[in-house]
C-alpha cells in the first residue's frame, strides 16, 4: 500500500491541473466565454446531467455543438482564435486551470494503489460479452478476475483478438477505458483490487474525503 499522507502532501503542492480545451472536430467556432480569469463550472449531478459552463459553440453542417467546461476552474488563457474562425480538429482553443476535486484525488491515489492492467497494444478494447453484460447491469466491482482469464477483445486493423488478464486475482475496482475509444499501449484498462484489500482501499478513500479541501 502507498503512503497516502505523502501523496496528499505532493498533491497539495500543486493542487490543480491545466485542461487544454481543443476543438473536438473541425468547424466554425463562436466563443461564449471571452475573458481570461472567468470562473467556469464543470458538469455536475449524479450522472453529470447538468452541463458545465458553455465555453463556445462549434458549428459543422448547421449543427452547433456546444463546448462545455469539463471541470470547474478558471480560464487561464485563450489561444488567439477569433469568434467566427474555422478551426481544425484538435486545434487549441483555451486553457482552464482546474483545482482537483476529492474524486480526482481519490482516482489518482487509486491508480497508484490498485493493480493496473495495461493495454498490451494500441487499439480498441471491449470486455468479453458476458463480462460486459455483468458490468453494465451490476457494475464492475461485481466482476472477479483471475490470472489467465480471457477478459478483453482487442480490435485493431480489421482484426479482433482476445486478451487475457494477467495479474493478481480480485475484483475490477475501476475501468479506465470507454467503448470505441482507441487506447494507447500501456494505458491502464482496469484497476484490480484483491478482495482481501478492499478494506484498505476504503480507508484511503475515507482519508481523502476527510482531508482534502476542495477549492473553487
Amino acid at each position, binding site marked *: 500500500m502507498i503512503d497516502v499522507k505523502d501523496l496528499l502532501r505532493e498533491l497539495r503542492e500543486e493542487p490543480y491541473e491545466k485542461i487544454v480545451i481543443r476543438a473536438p472536430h*473541425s468547424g466554425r467556432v463562436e466563443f461564449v466565454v471571452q475573458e481570461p480569469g472567468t470562473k467556469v463550472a464543470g458538469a455536475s449531478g449524479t450522472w453529470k446531467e447538468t452541463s458545465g459552463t458553455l465555453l463556445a459553440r462549434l458549428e459543422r453542417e448547421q449543427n452547433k455543438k456546444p463546448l462545455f467546461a469539463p471541470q470547474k476552474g478558471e480560464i487561464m488563457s485563450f489561444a488567439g482564435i477569433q469568434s467566427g474562425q474555422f478551426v481544425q480538429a484538435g486545434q487549441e482553443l483555451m486553457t482552464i486551470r482546474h483545482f482537483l476535486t476529492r474524486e480526482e484525488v481519490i482516482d489518482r491515489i487509486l491508480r497508484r494503489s490498485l493493480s493496473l492492467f495495461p493495454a498490451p*497494444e494500441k487499439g480498441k478494447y471491449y470486455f468479453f460479452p458476458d463480462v460486459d453484460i455483468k458490468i453494465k447491469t451490476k457494475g464492475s466491482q461485481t466482476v472477479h478476475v483471475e490470472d489467465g482469464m480471457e477478459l478483453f477483445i482487442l480490435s485493431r486493423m480489421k482484426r479482433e483478438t482476445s486478451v487475457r488478464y494477467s495479474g493478481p486475482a480480485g475484483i475490477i475496482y475501476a475501468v479506465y477505458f470507454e467503448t470505441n475509444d*482507441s487506447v494507447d499501449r500501456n494505458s491502464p484498462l482496469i484497476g484490480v483490487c484483491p478482495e482481501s484489500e478492499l478494506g484498505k482501499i476504503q480507508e484511503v478513500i475515507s482519508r481523502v474525503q476527510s482531508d482534502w479541501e476542495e477549492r473553487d
Partner: protein
Amino acid sequence: MKKSSEVHRHTILIANRGEIAIRIMQACQKLGLAFVALFTEPDKHSEHCVLARRLGGEKSLFRVSSYLDANEIFAVADESGATAIHPGYGFFAEDYRFAKRVTQRERKLVFIGPSWQVIRELGDKINTKRLARKLGVPTVPGSDKPVTDDLEAEAIAKSLFDFQQEQGVNDPVILVKASAGGGGMGIEEVSDMDKFRAVLRRIKNYAKRQFRDEGVLIEQRIFDFNHLEVQILADRTGQNPVHFGTRNCSVQSLGRQKRIEVAPGFDPTSLRYAFDARKVLEDITEYSLRMAREAGYDNVGTWEWIVSPTGHPFLMEVNTRIQVENGVSARIASIKGKGGVDLIAEQIRVGLGAPLGYSQNEIVLNGVGLEYRIIAEDPDNKFAPWVGRITSFSWPELPWLTMHTQVPTDREYEIPTDFDPNLALAIIWGKDLAEVKARGVEFLNTLSLAGENASGEALKSNIEFLKRKTETVLVF
C-alpha cells in the same frame, strides 16, 4: 451529360486516407482538378499528407477528428469550397445514406461513386441476391434476408446442412456472416449444429459492435473455391456499362483478407483447368453486365464471385465502389489503343457527369497484371498484424512496376493501428503469366522493408508468404 470543360471546374474533397487518397490526388492532377485532403492525428506522418501539401499547398489539407464524421467532412467541404466528394474505398463509399446526403444537402455536392439509389440496391447483400436470382444469375445457396431471430437462424442452418448431405457433400459446412459486413469481416464457418449456436452468438455480437446491426446471413460454405471479380464501369446514364475484365483474388490470409490479385482471373493458355475456364470468365462477365444494366449502374463497381472446383460460379456480392485492387485491372487495359488506364480518374470523370466516351470493343486487355499487398504481419501466427516503426522501405525503379503507398521512404514511420494494415500495393505487369510471376519474385527479392517494435523485435512481413504463393497463382 456534361462537357469536359464543366468537369474541370470541380474541387474534389478526398474523404479517405493512405494510398487511395494519394491515388485520388494523382487522378485529380491528371484531370486538372483541384482537391482537398483530410487527415487525422494518427495519420499526420502519412505520405498522403506530404503529397497533399506538395500538390495542393497547405490549404488543401484539413485535420479532422475522424474520417467517419460526415458532418465534419461537410464542414470542411464548405470551408474549402469543395464541390464533390470522393469517399475512396472506405465505409462512406458504400453508405447510401451518406451518398444521398452529399447530393441532397442545402449546398449540394457531387458524390463520386454510384448514385445513392444504386448503392442502396446493390450495396445490400440481400437485395443483390434477390436481383441476381430474378435475372437468372447464380447465387450461393442460403438465406436471402438478414436473420436476427436465433430459432429462425437455427432452422436455416439445419436445412443447409441437410441440403448439402442430400447433394452428397461428406462434410457439410455453412458460413455465418454479418449481413452488414464486407471485406471479409465478420464471417465464420461452422461444421455442426452444436457449434453453430456459439458462432451465431459471436457473429451477432461482432456485428452489433462493428456495424450496430446484428443481422446475419447463413450460407453454404463452398470449399476450395476461387474468388473472382469483374470490374465494371458506367457513366451517369446508367445505360452503357463496360467491363475491364476479371481478377482472381484467391490468395488470402486466414481472415479472408486479400493478399494477391491477378488479372485476368484464369489463364487457360498456360494452365489446365478441370472446366472450361474461358467460358467461366465470359459467363461471370456477362452476368455482371446483365445486373449492372438492370440496376442502371452508373459508376465503378465490382461483382464478386465464388467459382467452385467444378467451374460453377456463384455471385457473392457487389462492391459499389472503387476497390483496392482496381489498379491491377487498369494495368492490363488500354482504351482506344492508349495504355496507362487510370480507373480512379475514369471514376471521377464519369462521376462528375462526363460521358464514358468509349464502348466495350474499344477496351483491350493485354498481358497479365499481378498485385501484391505488402503488409507488416506474421503469416506464421494467423497473420497477426505487426505494429511498430518502419525504419527503411525501398524498392528498385522498374518499368513494369507501379507502387502505391502511404509509407514514406525518406524517413521512419510509425504504423498507425487505427486503420487497415496495408502498407503498400505493388502492381506488376508481364506479357504472360510466366513473365509476371518471374517479375513478381524479382521485385519481392529486391524489396527492402525493415523496422522494429517497442520491444525491439524486428518487423514481420508477408513478403515470404507472397513469394511462396506467387508460384501457384491462378492454379486451380
